[in-house]
């Protein structure tokens, strides 16, 4: 079969043909003429071996179809563009979905990797996001060997790294020595971390660098092994380079360095929980033994986990907790989550938008498909005499269907190529909308290629079969005898197709409208403070070798210098970043004579004097923090607190919260000794969608240090950036200023999902409306041409041009009306699926729906007016003579 396909290639075929002629001529000289018989018959029989009948007829059909398409350029162009746009949009989104959601980690047998998740009640604080366990728990689990082939722990963070000269912040993963072995990753050069790096805290100053870091920052140096680098001002030795393909476990977080967990104190000076049984901070991954299912492994793990929980409550240092808490704690289980895709915060947030977009592009492709079906029907109609003639001359139905499908195939291939050319364009648009740390490629990989081809071919079959089926039913005699006029076959089908197109376009347009309104609503609502001329940056003196009170001094010095800069009005420090999705949350005990615990976590933050003023948050009662709250005595800890308006209303009602006392945590033995000194206005902390109860504590109390500094300038923020860097450099030339950007920029980042949905959904909806409009135009042109004589007669009998146009427009109005009727229940059903992506607008939003219907109706009628007017304006006599 495949060998024979070569013979469809004209050059190849011609060469073989020439060769055969020569051979036969030579034989004619050697052999007996009589014995050889007719050489022409021999040659013809040989040709049939090369190219069986069906193959050569297919080749003929394809060439004929291609020639026909070249002749009918408009039809070809519109069809190919329709398929191309549909396939291109689909493949691009599919490429991203594939990279974001489906791709397995490039490690050994990724499907055997699991992530350990604590289900139930934890006691003690956590540092980080999701699936956190304590390091001692990880070590206890490591002794277990009936379930796991191996376990590793890791903590994703960022460190200040300096090669020579100024330090920069780079993503670094703290990993147990088992990390690379369990993953099955081999070094590109040198060695990776191993069990020998797991022995004693502080005694393994070694690091593995990523391939990319080695190439870009170390200049691909050949003597990289043994090179010294400063990590948070602590000297460490590079022992190896990771392979190029390995980029960590998280989509959206690519570590540049891997450092042993034993170096935790050096890598994360802010906290050292290596021996803390109740402090949860590591993610623990395991590799299941071969053939073990997750359910079996999980069941096998529980008895041991239960014993560990029991043992923990009997250890010294176990806090006194309420009986209910203890019961829930002991009832906790250890869950195993499949981790072959790694672990990603970003994937979780992007999943829904990406799938919505994939569905949207699927609809666009369907629309494109209908367009081409429609065009093929029209073309089949215009060629009906030719078809009928072929049928009456004895062409089989199979043969005619094959001819039709050949045309579809040519269109599909051309469309797929066009689509693939569009993929990088669409992908790049989306990548531009994503944060820069997301590793996505705009290239076309084999999976995407297969997807595009499958999409184009299935599309071509869908639209190719409709006219083919239709042609099979025509009666050749009727067609050949047919005078023009009469009811054209297939008009009903074409109208149905266009009506569905209108409905689909409407669904997409309403969806896009909802996302645009959501984006606009969030933008209009804002963060609860004025973001104009407001910017922020981070410093972390502890990572630049400033310990204890020195770190606090450095922070204060930077704040003071920034406040004195020309163009700067106020500045203040916040422990936590704002509007990035994360927060410091924990339950709080309130005591105002009556002791109670808040329902769930309260969002907490540490703020310096001047922070609220800088953001412009009003103090509604009491006072803000002052210099005395920012004391140096670490033993005192926090002594005062400010709560926000929501907090005050929820837990104190009409009474004033001033003077009431708080404690962090919900245990029965926590001492409520933080006095509420003020009530601040509400503002958005985690993101624009949520407005929670908040409590704030003095950021610079005791030895606490570093964080995000917010600056209100009287000049444009960007023009103050250079002087801010300079100010920090004056305090410590080696301490980097990171994430220096305007709050507006931060707001934009927090609206990433909404922007992606609004932008791309609008683009796809526009495409859908365009395709539907083309469909309407095609059908109305067709109907009008069929009715030219009728219109001519009407005009001759004295009816006005306007009424004739109206007659034609009626067709379009009916199609739009039915389209709307089909679309509404679909919008209602789909609306429930996207509801949680919306904000400030309901799925069945009247304004959006009305707007979308009007737009689609206007586009459809606009597309109909053109052919209608053309028919009517045409000279009356000419019209009549035409028939």
């Amino acid at each position, binding site marked *: 079969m495949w060998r024979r396909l070569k013979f469809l290639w004209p050059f190849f075929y011609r060469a073989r043909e020439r060769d055969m002629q020569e051979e036969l001529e030579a*034989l004619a000289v050697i052999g007996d003429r009589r014995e050889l018989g007719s050489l022409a018959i021999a040659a013809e029989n040989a040709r049939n071996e090369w190219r069986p009948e069906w193959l050569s007829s297919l080749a003929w059909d394809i060439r004929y179809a291609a020639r026909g398409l070249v002749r009918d350029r408009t039809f070809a162009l519109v069809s190919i563009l329709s398929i191309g746009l549909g396939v291109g949009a689909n493949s691009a989104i599919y490429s991203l979905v594939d990279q974001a959601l489906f791709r397995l980690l490039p490690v050994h047998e990724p499907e055997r990797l699991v992530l350990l998740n604590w289900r139930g009640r934890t006691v003690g604080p956590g540092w980080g996001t999701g699936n956190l366990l304590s390091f001692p728990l990880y070590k206890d689990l490591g002794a277990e060997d009936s379930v796991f082939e191996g376990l590793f722990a890791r903590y994703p963070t960022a460190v200040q790294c300096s090669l020579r000269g100024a330090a920069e912040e780079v993503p670094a993963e703290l990993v147990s020595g088992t990390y690379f072995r369990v993953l099955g990753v081999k070094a590109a050069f040198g060695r990776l971390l191993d069990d020998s790096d797991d022995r004693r805290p502080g005694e393994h100053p070694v690091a593995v660098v990523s391939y990319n870091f080695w190439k870009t920052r170390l200049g691909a140096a050949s003597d990289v092994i043994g090179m010294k680098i400063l990590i948070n001002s602590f000297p460490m030795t590079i022992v190896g380079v990771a392979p190029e393909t390995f980029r960590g476990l998280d989509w959206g977080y690519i570590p540049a360095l891997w450092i042993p967990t034993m170096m935790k104190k050096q890598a994360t000076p802010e906290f050292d929980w290596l021996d803390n049984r109740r402090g949860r901070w590591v993610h623990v991954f395991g590799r299941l033994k071969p053939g073990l299912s997750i359910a079996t492994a999980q069941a096998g793990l529980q008895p041991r986990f239960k014993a560990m929980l029991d043992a923990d409550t009997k250890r010294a240092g176990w806090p006194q907790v309420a009986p209910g808490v203890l019961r829930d704690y002991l009832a906790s289980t250890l869950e195993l989550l499949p981790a072959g895709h790694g672990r990603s915060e970003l994937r979780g947030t992007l999943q829904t938008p990406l799938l919505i977009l994939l569905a949207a592009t699927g609809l666009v492709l369907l629309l494109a498909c209908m367009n081409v079906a429609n065009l093929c029907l029209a073309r089949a109609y215009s060629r009906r005499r030719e078809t009928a003639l072929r049928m009456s001359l004895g062409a089989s139905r199979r043969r005619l269907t094959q001819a039709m499908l050949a045309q579809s195939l040519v269109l599909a291939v051309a469309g797929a190529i066009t689509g693939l050319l569009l993929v990088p364009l669409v992908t790049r648009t989306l990548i531009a909308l994503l944060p820069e740390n997301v590793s996505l490629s705009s290239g076309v990989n084999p999976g995407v290629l297969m997807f595009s081809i499958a999409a184009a071919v299935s599309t071509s079959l869908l639209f190719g079969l409709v006219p083919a089926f239709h042609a099979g039913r025509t009666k050749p005699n009727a067609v050949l005898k047919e005078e023009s006029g009469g009811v054209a076959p297939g008009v009903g089908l074409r109208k149905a197709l266009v009506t569905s197109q209108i409905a689909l376009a409407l669904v997409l347009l309403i969806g896009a409208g909802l996302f645009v309104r959501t984006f606009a609503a969030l933008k209009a609502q804002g963060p609860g403070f004025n973001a104009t001329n407001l910017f922020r940056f981070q410093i972390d003196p502890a990572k630049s070798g400033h310990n204890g009170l020195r770190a606090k001094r450095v922070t204060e010095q930077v704040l003071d210098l920034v406040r004195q800069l020309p163009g700067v009005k106020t500045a203040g420090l916040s422990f936590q970043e704002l509007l990035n999705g994360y927060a410091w949350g924990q339950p709080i005990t309130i005591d105002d004579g009556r002791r109670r615990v808040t329902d769930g976590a309260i969002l907490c933050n540490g703020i310096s004097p001047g922070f609220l003023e800088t953001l412009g948050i009003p103090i509604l009662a009491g006072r803000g923090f002052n210099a005395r709250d920012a004391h140096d005595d670490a033993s005192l800890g926090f002594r005062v607190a400010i709560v926000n308006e929501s907090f005050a209303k929820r837990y104190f009602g009409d009474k004033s919260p001033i003077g009431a006392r708080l404690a962090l945590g919900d245990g029965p033995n926590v001492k409520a000794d933080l006095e509420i000194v003020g009530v601040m206005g509400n503002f958005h902390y985690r993101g624009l969608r949520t407005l929670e109860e908040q409590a704030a504590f003095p950021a610079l109390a005791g030895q606490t240090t570093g964080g995000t500094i917010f600056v209100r300038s009287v000049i444009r923020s960007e023009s103050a950036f250079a002087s801010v860097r300079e100010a920090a450099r004056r305090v410590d030339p080696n301490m980097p200023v990171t994430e220096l950007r305007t709050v507006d920029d931060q707001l934009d980042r927090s609206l990433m999902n909404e922007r992606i949905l609004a932008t791309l959904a609008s683009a796809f909806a526009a495409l859908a409306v365009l395709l539907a409009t083309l469909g309407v135009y095609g059908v109305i042109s067709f109907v009008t041409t069929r009715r030219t004589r009728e219109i001519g007669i009407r005009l001759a009998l004295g009816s006005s041009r306007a009424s004739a146009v109206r007659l034609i427009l009626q067709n379009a109005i009916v199609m739009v009306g039915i389209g709307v009727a089909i679309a509404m229940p679909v919008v209602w059903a789909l609306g429930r699926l996207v509801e949680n992506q919306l904000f400030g607008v309901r799925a069945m939003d009247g304004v959006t729906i009305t707007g979308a219907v009007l737009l689609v109706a206007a586009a459809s009628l606009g597309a109909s007016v053109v052919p209608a007017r053309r028919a009517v304006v045409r000279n009356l006599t000419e019209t009549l003579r035409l028939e």
Partner: protein
Amino acid sequence: MDLLQGTLDMLVLRTLLGGPLHGYGVAKAIRASSNEELDIEFGSLYPALKRLELKGWIGSDWAVSDHNRKAKFYRLTAAGRKQLRRERSEWDTFVSTVARIMGPRPEDA
């Protein structure tokens, strides 16, 4: 005598086992080794050669014949040899099976 359906390919392969031959040579060789019983029309032999060539069982090269004339010579390839062995064993099975059913000649008795 007519040829059994599907045996032509096998005969061509068997004939080429003796060495390369041109198309006319193959026809002559088959006729000769069948004691002139089989007369295969060149019109059906020639496409068979092309078919076998397409399947990669035989190859062809231009060469000079005994009479100092240029002709295209066909030769058995390794794949062709393997195919011949396969067809040969199938043929043997076929012959012995048919022979078993037919048995000794009762109709002569």
